[in-house]
């Protein structure tokens, strides 16, 4: 039967799934804890840029949609924390690491949402990029993570479509509304491409993650997939993607596109993006100011238990 490690790799190579009680290499477990926790944090922090517009949504219908979307993101965070907990960590510890700035989340949420069109651009581009990645992750070798992704992908489709629909409306509206949509695309395009991470040549974790089938497609391939999918959608809207080097490459069968500003990328990763500080401050404040809700729930449960006794 071979060593534990060989048995583990054989399960992975056979496209079967690793489950929580299986033996797994410590590096595999740590990589998953790190990635799933960051993914969960991203969902939770990702509630803020859109939460910012709930009170200012243009209609009651749009407000209801936005609230449902933000609620989904809370749900996605919870599925993911649950998946992380199957690896023997505690949700409260992970959250504390986030509050102390020791854990990261996707840098995209460190950009501000300045106009209503940003709600459209986030759904279309940010959720679109997330779907590209998460569809891959439904085939991840770790069972609980892959299963959480299946649920999340079903719900993300709503997120992307409602965003794109917002932009269709704006692009068919007044010149000012169309300009607002273009401005949102101008600001969100490059950060969305950055969401796929460093180039494959600079990606430190990728090789091992591919071998373990945590990651199935490289950063650059996913980024290309996203660009190819998104360019025609921008054309349909009549919007211009802010990249002078963007053009169809007949030979490759893909769009060529310009270089990402990697200096900006690393600056935001390191904590100096426009909103890094505010996001964590807000998250920590919400947790602290919500303490009474948790205490009340605990007290209420205790009261019910006493009455039932």
């Amino acid at each position, binding site marked *: 039967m071979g060593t534990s490690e060989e048995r583990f790799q054989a399960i992975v190579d056979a496209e079967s799934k690793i489950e929580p009680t299986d033996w797994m290499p410590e590096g595999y477990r740590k990589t998953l804890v790190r*990635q799933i926790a960051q993914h969960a944090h991203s969902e939770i922090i990702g509630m803020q840029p859109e939460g910012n517009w709930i009170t200012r949504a243009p209609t009651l219908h749009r407000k209801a949609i936005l609230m449902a979307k933000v609620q989904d993101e809370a749900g996605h965070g919870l599925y993911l924390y649950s998946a992380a907990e199957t690896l023997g960590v505690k949700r409260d510890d992970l959250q*504390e690491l986030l509050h102390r700035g020791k854990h990261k989340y*996707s840098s995209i949420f460190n950009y501000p949402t300045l106009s209503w069109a940003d709600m459209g651009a986030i759904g279309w581009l940010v959720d679109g990029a997330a779907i590209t990645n998460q569809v891959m992750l439904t085939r991840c070798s770790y069972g609980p993570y892959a299963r959480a992704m299946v649920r999340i992908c079903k719900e993300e489709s709503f997120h992307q479509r409602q965003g794109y629909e917002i932009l269709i409306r704006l692009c068919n509206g007044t010149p000012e509304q169309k300009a607002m949509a273009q401005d949102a695309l101008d600001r969100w395009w490059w950060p969305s491409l950055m969401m*796929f991470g460093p180039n494959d040549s600079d990606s430190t974790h990728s090789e091992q993650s591919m071998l373990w089938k945590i990651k199935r497609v490289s950063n650059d391939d*996913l980024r290309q997939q996203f660009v190819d999918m998104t360019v025609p959608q921008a054309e349909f809207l009549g919007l211009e993607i802010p990249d002078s080097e963007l053009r169809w490459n007949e030979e490759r069968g893909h769009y060529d596109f310009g270089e990402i500003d990697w200096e900006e990328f690393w600056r935001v990763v390191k904590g100096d993006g426009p909103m890094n500080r505010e996001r964590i401050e807000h998250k920590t404040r919400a947790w602290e100011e919500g303490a009474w809700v948790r205490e009340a*729930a605990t007290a209420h449960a205790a009261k019910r238990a006493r009455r039932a006794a």
Partner: protein
Amino acid sequence: MTYDVPVAPGEKAELEEAIEGAAEGWPMWEVFVRARRGISHVHIGSLHAPDARTALENARDVYTRRGEGVSVWVVPSSEISAFEPEAAAEYVEANEKVYRLATTYDIPDEVGQM
């Protein structure tokens, strides 16, 4: 996109650590949902809650926002028993008695569907 946020050059990666003084969380519950009448409850995930009723209410909000179920069960995770992982193969994967399988019997075609 990737959720593997890179470690910036010169930065130290903090993968995980137990946090002193982090809030003592509520117990964990496993959630089972019956998708529709006529089929069994199926495990769908887990959550934290102070008691069974709150666990049910949270399960409804977290796992059935789009009509995924007509019935929800919650069970304290600590109440679930299982074979030790090393022993599981021995207990639940053994299949040496192939004569238990219907497909191991040769029935002539002319007998028809059986």
